């Protein structure tokens, strides 16, 4: 293989000297360590020549350091001369260091060219058109691993600033009152409890499939506090079947507290929160049984749900109960939306819980996320406007902004 290749190089080299004037050697060739990578790669950059075209081809020559005879270099790549431009490589304006119209080729360590970091190698570029071939000057370079990927700078800045915003918002929320809009679903909650009282039927409240480490379960527990307070005030029976023993213990505390706050501690029943089983379908079958036997007037489904959602809400709907759901499990949302009377969609669940709990960490996080969303919203609007201007006028300056939201590796 090697012999064959070097034979090819020889053939290319010993073309008549007169023909060499036809094509000019690639000019301003630069060979550097490929930036922003883990090493073992060199990048070659050179200016376009006026012989560039589909019929001309560039060759990348490679060899050990100290080689001065181009004949001893190996051709490791060959491609049409109208390809491999700097602009084809995905990069941002702060990492691009050559004109977009120049040529660029990255030599990676592989079978043809084994690169060791710190060792220098000889590299040259040749332009071939028909039988003519011209070779640039021979350059020496060594590759090295890098400590930072500058292409991901925007990612890092975004991460740091968003983190900063969240913590700032949390500390701000600890000191000040922050406005949160009222979640309409909460009115529906009160209404459902009211109706249960009128009918003298119990209320069923589920906290979802996950344990207390999931934010949606925490939100469900917070909203349970609110519901329990109302049921205490109206003296309505509350049923909370659980799938996780720890969640049950926490919810028991929350319910007790709610009854205390409502001034009816004597009405609190320890067994209104009860554990069924952690298995998905046994739990579902049991809850369905409760729905059919006790016919609660209102069913609440808060927290995280999986395929069991439809089995629960469909049975609930068949008993004629008012159903209110709140979940961040987006794959189950369609079923809740169709079978329930009111659904807190996704983040509305967290917002409702933050609204009720008034806890600075929750409110602050929500506010921080809102700011994040606002930034993204404006970036999208502004970006679309700039991209359109760029596309219509062919101007380059919009990319100064657009590159900030580009994912480049």
């Amino acid at each position, binding site marked *: 293989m090697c012999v064959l290749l070097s034979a090819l190089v020889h053939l290319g080299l010993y073309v008549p000297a007169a023909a060499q004037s036809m094509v000019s050697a690639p000019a301003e060739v630069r060979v550097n360590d490929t930036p922003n990578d883990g090493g073992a790669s060199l990048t070659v950059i050179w200016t376009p020549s006026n012989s560039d075209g589909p019929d001309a081809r560039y060759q990348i020559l490679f060899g050990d350091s100290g080689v001065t005879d181009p004949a001893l270099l190996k051709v490791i790549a060959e491609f049409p001369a109208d390809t491999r431009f700097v602009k084809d490589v995905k990069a941002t304006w702060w990492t691009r260091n050559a004109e977009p119209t120049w040529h660029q080729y990255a030599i990676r360590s592989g079978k043809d060219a084994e690169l060791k970091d710190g060792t220098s190698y000889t590299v040259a570029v040749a332009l071939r058109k028909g039988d003519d071939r011209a070779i640039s000057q021979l350059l020496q370079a060594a590759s090295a691993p890098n400590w930072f990927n500058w292409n*991901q700078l*925007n*990612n*890092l800045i*975004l*991460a740091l600033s*968003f983190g900063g915003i969240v913590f700032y918002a949390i500390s701000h929320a600890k000191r000040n009152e*922050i*406005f*949160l*809009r*009222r979640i309409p679903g909460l009115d529906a909650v009160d209404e459902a409890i009211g109706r249960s009282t009128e009918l003298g039927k119990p209320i069923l409240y589920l906290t979802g499939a996950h344990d207390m480490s999931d934010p949606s379960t925490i939100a469900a527990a917070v909203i349970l506090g609110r519901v329990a307070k109302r049921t205490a005030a109206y003296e309505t029976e509350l049923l909370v079947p659980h799938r996780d023993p720890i969640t049950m213990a926490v919810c028991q505390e929350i319910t007790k507290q709610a009854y205390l706050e409502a001034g009816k501690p004597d009405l609190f029943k320890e067994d209104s929160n009860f554990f069924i089983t952690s*298995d998905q*379908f*046994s739990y579902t*079958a049991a809850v*369905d*049984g409760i729905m059919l*036997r006790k016919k609660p007037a209102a069913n609440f489904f808060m927290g995280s749900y999986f395929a069991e959602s439809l089995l629960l809400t469909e049975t609930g709907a068949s008993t004629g109960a008012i159903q209110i759901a709140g979940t961040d499990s987006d*794959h189950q*949302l*369609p*079923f809740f*939306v*169709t079978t329930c009377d009111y659904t807190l*969609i*996704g*983040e*509305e669940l967290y*917002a409702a819980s*933050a609204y009720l709990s008034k806890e600075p960490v929750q409110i602050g996080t*929500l*506010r921080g996320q*809102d700011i994040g*969303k*606002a930034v*993204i*919203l404006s*970036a*999208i*609007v502004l*970006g*679309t406007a700039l*991209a*359109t201007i*760029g*596309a*219509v006028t*062919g101007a380059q300056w919009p990319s100064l902004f*657009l590159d900030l*939201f*580009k*994912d480049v590796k």
Partner: protein
Amino acid sequence: MDATVLGAWVATGLTLFIFSFLYKDNPLFKLAEHLYVGVSVGYTIVKAYDTVIVHLIVKPIFEQGEFALLIPVAIGLLMLTRYVPKAAWLSRYAFAFIVGVGSGLAIPRTISSFILKQVEDTVRPVLSLAGGDGVTFSMNLLNPASSINVIIILIGVISVLFYFFFSIEHSGPGKIVARTGVMFLMIAFGAAFGYTVMARMSLLIGRLTDLIEFSDASYGNPTLWLAILTVGVLLVLSRRSSPGEQEK
């Protein structure tokens, strides 16, 4: 009896027992359901033992001498202290490690894949310079990259993002944007519902295909006999429980 024939009988029986839930919750369903939990837990334990203990821990450590792997083993064992009340706090070290690494890995990757990439793709020129026609606005709805669709996607993304905005009251012009967001959400939910119908029906088709296959005489007609058995049991059970149900 041949293992396949026995398998056909067992599989058919269990399938029918579970389907009996459609009539109502009954002991046959409960039996199959608990068996399901037991078998899948047993399966997981065997797989975890074989993969983790044998192939990822014992072999590399004793055959290749990778003693560094004792560290994750120690972390894993710490996790199990959760069940010893006095030493339960030790499990925190394990969770601290897992959750710490998990959160660290997630931050830049989430930003890259789900924020930057998604914003990058939403930000597209609304008008384009196509060939020699000058500035064009393409109206082709079927081409997702056409100008009209770029605008629709833009409206959808913005209005839905706005809907999940909790710092401002949804009133005035905000109300219109939020309402648009709701409409977009409903369309997406409708599409998801429609798509899911196919998913659920596929499961049913899969089970029925097996039942049809097992109704073959070469297996001894398990589907037929077991269906008769299941219905029979259900009838007996409902007879027996109907006077008792009044008490409940």
